[in-house]
């Protein structure tokens, strides 16, 4: 056996007297354990405290694919990545620089996914190295061999041994010990940490809090005595009041803030936690979460409620969206206001249930048979998740249409601080109009120019009509006469153009002209902007634009694209590689936004897309942009390429 270059070191042999303090503007740390050992709770608590102390923070969950994967296997890796910064952090970054692993197998999983920096510091539970069980020791040795390919600095930590001094079953408790380690390494405020622990165990008995606080202290003490390094990510105190939460919690609050009263859903990852959050608090605010018998019923109930005057929303992910299709066509046809939240995951079919993808854009846009115009909005930050349903509900009511809100698994579980919103009663829906309808008014009194009309709500005297998904005229009467369908389609489509006339052209991140413009949507925004910043600092003329409205598209895109020599999209969905066998410029299937933009602008837009089952990394995006920059500048110089 060759000697590993990164042989694990027992912490005791390190000399904490000569403690090094690493001063950085940002740092990326991961905590990984077997599923069920609580690394997520540890990491989320650490992230929350860091945000409260004034760091920019982005956290991403590392989620095992199964509920009960076998322990001590790479498939079992469960945890969190926390990226801290002096300034705001908008994405999960590239590689983890510090990792705390509860066993070597979950560590291997991160290593194999190339999640770790080549010189990452790894703190790992020491008990497996000397374990009584031969096969465990052998697995440990094999893992160390594999890990030795990198320059990791591996430090052994007697987690189990230390925790046993407080608890009988260290599987329940190591996570708070590790929280203590991190608190000591990053100099986190003990009081805040304890308050966070109290919050994490708020539903448990007080003894549970006390035991976990004790484990936390133990972890702190051990790190202080044994670890020869600290990491200091300077904090800049916030000038605004801030809040911190994940995207799904923000969506839940958004529903309350928008004055909605009904969330009608069927459980599906990664959308469900919106309803978990709402189920806890919605009733206090006069709303309910209705768990329907399936997604079809979920949207049907929402449509029934909206028809009756209370705009409701349904929240789902890909497979559920597929089931809702027919009802969504009905809502478009009958102009029932409705808000649909799609927290996208990998697909098609059951796909990657817990992982990010942006693959539902075209399904949302074109998923209904027949012509079904709609509005599609994609928030790109947690803060936008908080505001999006307020906008969505307003548009749905004002334009009598379905508004889709596309988020994804990355926003759903990503945690980020943002300025505290100031709730306003103007954000909320008023009570349904119950005044008699004016004499002569009709249920689809389309304005010829705008397609807009006022809707009648049950309870309004004189407004009785039968809503129907069949082709209907202004009186909602079924009519197949020539021209009736054409007019209905015209009117429903026109509204989308009218909405577009109220939108602003997208702002660019960086210069408004240059060599390459990178266009993205949704949760990739932070990653793309960070990649663009890196290229700009290398001297390249690169900018980016993020599209919040996907239907209607924001105005002025053609002009914007004309100011760059090349335009490309970066997306988390599938596209053929240009140089793959059989792939030509004509048959190449491109990214979904790319396809849409090409069709709408006739600009020859390129794309770089990936479906890795995890968020994109700024370094990979930067490489892709760099390649594009090279080909643009090579073309310009007349170089043969």
């Amino acid at each position, binding site marked *: 056996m060759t000697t590993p270059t990164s042989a694990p070191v027992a912490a005791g042999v390190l000399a904490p007297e000569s403690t090094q303090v690493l001063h950085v503007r940002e740092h990326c740390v991961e905590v990984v354990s077997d599923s069920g050992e609580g690394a997520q709770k540890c990491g989320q608590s650490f992230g929350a405290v860091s945000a409260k102390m004034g760091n920019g923070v982005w956290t991403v969950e590392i989620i095992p694919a199964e509920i009960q994967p076998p322990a001590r296997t790479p498939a079992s890796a469960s945890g969190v990545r926390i990226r801290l910064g002096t300034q705001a952090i908008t994405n999960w970054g590239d590689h983890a620089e510090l990792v705390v692993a509860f066993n070597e197998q979950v560590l291997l999983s991160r290593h194999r996914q190339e999640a770790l920096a080549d010189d990452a510091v790894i703190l790992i539970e020491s008990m497996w190295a000397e374990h009584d069980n031969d096969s465990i020791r052998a697995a440990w040795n094999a893992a160390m061999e594999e890990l030795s390919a990198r320059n990791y600095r591996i430090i052994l930590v007697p987690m189990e041994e230390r925790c046993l001094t407080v608890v009988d079953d260290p599987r329940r408790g190591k996570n708070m010990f590790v929280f203590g380690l991190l608190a000591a390494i990053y100099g986190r405020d003990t009081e805040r940490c304890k308050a966070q622990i109290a919050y994490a165990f708020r539903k448990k008995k007080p003894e549970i809090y006390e035991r976990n606080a004790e484990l936390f202290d133990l972890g702190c003490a051990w790190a202080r005595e044994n670890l020869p390094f600290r990491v200091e990510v300077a904090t800049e105190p916030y000038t605004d009041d801030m809040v911190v939460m994940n995207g799904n919690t923000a969506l839940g609050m958004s529903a309350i803030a928008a004055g909605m009263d009904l969330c009608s859903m069927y459980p599906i990852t990664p959308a469900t936690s919106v309803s978990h959050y709402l189920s806890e608090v919605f009733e206090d605010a006069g709303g309910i979460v*209705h768990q*329907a018998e399936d997604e079809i019923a979920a949207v049907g109930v929402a449509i029934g409620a909206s028809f*009756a005057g209370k705009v409701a929303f349904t929240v789902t992910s890909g497979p559920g969206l597929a089931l809702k299709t027919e009802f969504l066509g009905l809502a478009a046809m009958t102009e029932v206001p409705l808000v649909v939240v799609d927290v996208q995951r990998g697909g098609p079919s059951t796909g990657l249930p817990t992982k990010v993808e942006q693959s539902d854009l075209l399904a949302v846009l074109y998923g209904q048979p027949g012509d079904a115009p709609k509005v599609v909005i994609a928030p790109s930050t947690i803060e936008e998740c908080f505001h999006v349903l307020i906008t969505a509900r307003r548009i749905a009511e004002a334009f009598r249409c379905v508004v889709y809100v596309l988020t994804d698994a990355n926003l759903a579980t990503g945690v980020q601080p943002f300025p505290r919103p100031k709730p306003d009663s103007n954000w909320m829906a008023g009570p349904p109009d119950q005044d008699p309808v004016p004499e002569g008014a009709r249920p689809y009194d389309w304005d010829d120019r705008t397609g807009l009309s006022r809707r009648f709500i*049950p309870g309004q005297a004189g407004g009785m009509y039968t809503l129907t998904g069949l082709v209907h005229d202004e009186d909602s009467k079924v009519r197949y006469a020539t021209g009736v369908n054409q007019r209905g389609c015209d009117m429903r489509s026109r509204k989308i153009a009218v909405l577009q006339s109220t939108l602003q052209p997208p702002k660019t991140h960086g210069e408004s002209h240059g060599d390459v413009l990178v266009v993205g949507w949704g949760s990739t925004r932070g990653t793309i902007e960070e990649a663009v910043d890196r290229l700009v600092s290398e001297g390249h003329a690169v900018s980016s634009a993020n599209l919040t409205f996907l239907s209607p598209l924001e105005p002025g895109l053609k002009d914007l694209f004309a100011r760059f020599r090349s335009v490309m999209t970066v997306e988390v969905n599938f596209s053929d590689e240009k140089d793959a066998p059989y792939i030509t410029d004509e048959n190449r299937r491109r990214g979904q936004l790319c396809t849409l933009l090409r069709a709408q602008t006739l600009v020859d837009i390129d794309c770089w897309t990936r479906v890795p089952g995890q968020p994109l990394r700024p370094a990979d995006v930067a490489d892709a942009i760099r390649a594009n920059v090279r080909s643009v500048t090579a073309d310009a110089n007349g170089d043969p390429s």
Partner: protein
Amino acid sequence: MTATCTLTDCGAAPDVEYSMDDYAGPVARWCPGCGDHSVLSAAQRLLATHQMAPEKTVFVSGIGCSSRFPHYLRTYGFHGIHGRALPISTGVKLARPDLDVFAVMGDGDCCSIGAAHWIHAVRYNVNMVALLLDNNIYGLTKKQTSPTTPQGFPSNTQPRGSILPPMNPLSVTLGVTNASFVAQTADWAPQHLYATLDAAYRHRGFAFVRILQRCPIWTASLFRDAVQDPAKVEVLVHEKGIHDATTEAIHTNHLDHDPSDLNAARALAEEGGMRLGLFFHDPTNACYDETRRVPGYTPEDRIAILKRELDRHAV
């Protein structure tokens, strides 16, 4: 189904008197002799009897001949999509407990494509009336086998006769936990039909009424015997049941059945046969729209909740 009496409800135009005609929409375009006509008349009579405000009444349907129903009434209507009348009705009632809600479905609508919703609607037991217009066939799409088509009866999809034994909508409904009102009536017994709708409307909870419905176009032979020979029909009688003197005089076969006895109701339904009456009734079952009702709020209340939530997530 009892409407919750809110202040707005009670304040609704007390001096207006609605006649049956006030509820009539355009001329119904079902085939002559179609049983749906008679259900429509019974519904209009029910609306007038209870003086339901047209603007406070919603008829929801799916797709099929029977689902044209709302178009022929002057109330609010929702002609939805095939099989999904019940989720829509549930949404209407959850949002607006002050409205009277009726769902009208065909046998394909309710028992085939919408079967999951049917079972769960019985469980939810939302205050509303659900009418199953059962002609034992897919009418609108021209004679395909439905779940209630008698075994052996030929159709365009099963020309050598329906392959499976038919589903019994009464036993299915009675098998669902929380069923609270299950009745059967027939379009050709208008008095009984009306009396059944009236009992269903008065019921607190989800009132499920299966209406045997003639389709002279596709299933003319199916109910002929029962229509021509009143002795082929048995009427359930009981002081707690549906009482209609005319029907009981025409159909002299009476069967005493206490509708509060669930086991007896299940056994009776399982036996099949042509029985009209109230199989089961329990107005004490929990109603989802009542259990889930939450107090109203003002925008200020909501802002206070949001502030509390933001505090919980404050940095």
